[in-house]
């Protein structure tokens, strides 16, 4: 069905092929229907788009540049690398695109309390930011392990007036934070909107979150046509839940010559529990509202995951990615912790751009392929900036601290 893949829209039940759908306890079905209807109405309302566009431009800082990374490209001696600078957005990552859209929807529904989950803390910070802007009450669930890894973002959220609730269940990471947010939502549906931060969960979230991030791909496509007069040969993006990736991929889906390459967390090994590479190590299943690829054991219990990057450390992946994978329209590969950190060093030193650890995974794959593709054009989605990851970079690059110590 090539026509379906050209547009890649879900059916009325939110299915992308056999993926997606709506698998939640009955209590949540009517709030999901309410959200679906509110979003469908808003999409037809010019004033909704006008307000969102205004905020994206004047508050978040869109459009973001498509920057030609000449020094990195020269250094690699192959493909020309362009970087989509989502890291320059307000709050430091692409997440704000979706948060502004959903905050407008929450206001339309008359919901004054917002809850969210966060992994790396970027979505939590973006949520806390829009709640401050809209005067909404904000509670963010975050795994205890992620709070340790991302303590600067925890403080940023608190500074913005949000309540950050540590989640101590299971692996104490993103998956457990989502479960806890769903429990809160089940309990407080009448006055609360769940501002889900990735292209995950039950319908309409995967398609709605994607739509709010499509602006990344729409801009990038226009920009590359303007600069180079042609489409890129490949687009690279990291894939945790997959929101930045689906945002930049989606407007290129119909351009069959453009390779779409998603990069998952290869962690520190290929054994179950050592990585978050769902497409190479997982199989279809249902978790947290949606059917997609999952890391699971033979009993259908969800596996623990590992990644140096909290934002990619998740056992499932957005259902539209599962569909693009199955149709062969996008290719999914993985990058190890070590290669991601090395790529961050390379980008920092060739271009003066310190990437978020998540985005470093995408940079690493582009760096790997570029030398063998001399006449090609690559676009890498730099979904976030690296300030939040400085502690982890320090842990992984201890020789830099020693260097400083010797010269001091």
């Amino acid at each position, binding site marked *: 069905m090539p026509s379906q893949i050209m547009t890649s829209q879900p059916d009325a039940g939110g299915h992308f092929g056999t993926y997606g759908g709506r698998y939640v306890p*009955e*209590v949540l079905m009517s709030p999901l229907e309410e959200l679906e209807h509110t979003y469908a109405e808003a999409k037809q309302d010019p004033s909704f788009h006008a307000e969102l566009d205004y905020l994206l431009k004047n508050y978040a800082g869109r459009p973001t540049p498509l920057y030609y990374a000449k020094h990195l490209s020269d250094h690699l001696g192959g493909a020309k690398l362009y970087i989509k600078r989502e890291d320059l957005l307000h709050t430091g990552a692409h997440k704000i695109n979706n948060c502004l859209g959903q905050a407008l929807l929450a206001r339309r529904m008359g919901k004054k309390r917002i809850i969210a989950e966060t992994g790396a803390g970027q979505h939590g910070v973006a949520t806390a930011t829009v709640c401050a802007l809209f005067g909404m009450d904000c509670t963010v669930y975050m795994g205890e392990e992620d709070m340790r890894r991302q303590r600067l973002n925890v403080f940023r959220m608190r500074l913005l007036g949000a309540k950050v609730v540590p989640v101590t269940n*299971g692996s104490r990471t993103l998956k*457990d934070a989502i479960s806890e947010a769903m*429990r809160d939502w*089940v309990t407080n549906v009448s006055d609360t909107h769940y501002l889900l931060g990735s292209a995950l969960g039950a319908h309409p979230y995967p398609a709605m979150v994607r739509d709010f991030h499509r602006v990344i791909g729409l801009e990038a496509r226009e920009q590359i046509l303007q600069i180079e007069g042609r489409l890129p040969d490949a687009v690279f993006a990291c894939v945790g839940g997959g929101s930045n990736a689906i945002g930049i991929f989606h407007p290129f889906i119909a351009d069959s010559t453009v390779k779409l390459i998603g990069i998952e967390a290869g962690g520190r090994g290929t054994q179950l529990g050592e990585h978050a590479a769902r497409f190479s190590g997982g199989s279809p299943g249902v*978790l947290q509202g949606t059917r997609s690829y*999952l890391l699971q054991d033979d009993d259908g219990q969800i596996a623990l995951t590992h990644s140096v990057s909290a934002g990619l450390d998740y056992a499932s992946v957005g259902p539209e990615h599962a569909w693009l994978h199955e149709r062969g329209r996008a290719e999914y590969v993985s990058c190890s912790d070590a290669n991601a950190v090395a790529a961050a060093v390379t980008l920092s030193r060739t271009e003066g751009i310190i990437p978020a650890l998540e985005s470093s995974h995408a940079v690493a794959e582009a760096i790997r392929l570029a030398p063998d593709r001399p006449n090609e054009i690559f676009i890498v989605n730099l979904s976030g900036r690296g300030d939040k990851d400085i502690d982890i970079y320090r842990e992984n690059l201890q020789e830099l601290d020693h260097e400083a110590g010797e010269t001091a």
Partner: protein
Amino acid sequence: MIAYLTAGDPTPDATPGFVAALERGGADLIELGVPFSDPIADGPVIQQAGDRAIRAGTNLARVLAIAAEIRKTSEVPLLLFTYLNPALRYGFERLARDAKASGIDGCLLTDVSVEEAGDYVKAIRDAGLDTVFLAAPTSTEERLKLVAKYSSGFIYLVSRTGITGEQQTIADSAMPLVQRMRAHTNLPLAMGFGISTPQHVASLAGKVEAVVVGSAIVRQIEADSTKLEDFMRGLCTPILKKAAIF
């Protein structure tokens, strides 16, 4: 009176004895919870019971073996109560066949909405087992109609918006839901979520055909399983008539 317990908590071998105690204490139907790693509809008591059961090696196949063990000595109706993913992994048809052979009477998967239930309902019903669905205070009339259509055996009413766990009082949302559900079905109605004391049970007696107690039983097993039968008898005291379900 319907009693929920997490099968395999603290060990798979302990479950048949607990079920016998609950039955002696007055339980008319047992919900055997199959532990799942990410139970989004459950509060901390049942989550932790599930973690203990998984650590003790409990999986769906083991729960079916537990059911077969219970069946050797008891006719108490057994409802398999879990989430979709373990059932999906096991396979619906295989589950239906093996559950039937183990003496299971019906299934409830908390995260299967009626919209996504087609294949599952067909497989389970074809094996002659019942499919129970949840109805919630937030369900629209249209949804209650669908819940009635896909349910057999009985319908499980969720007393309030929220997760499983003990509460001080029965939510105000409980009674209107009973009335609304009756308009769409003649099936028996069971009410659960937050019901934990004889007073709660008394307030629902005569209004629904059965009440479900879960977290309070799981907590009693954790605290002192030797008093489980007495605890169950205490909960059942307010009920004059035994529930007739299945």
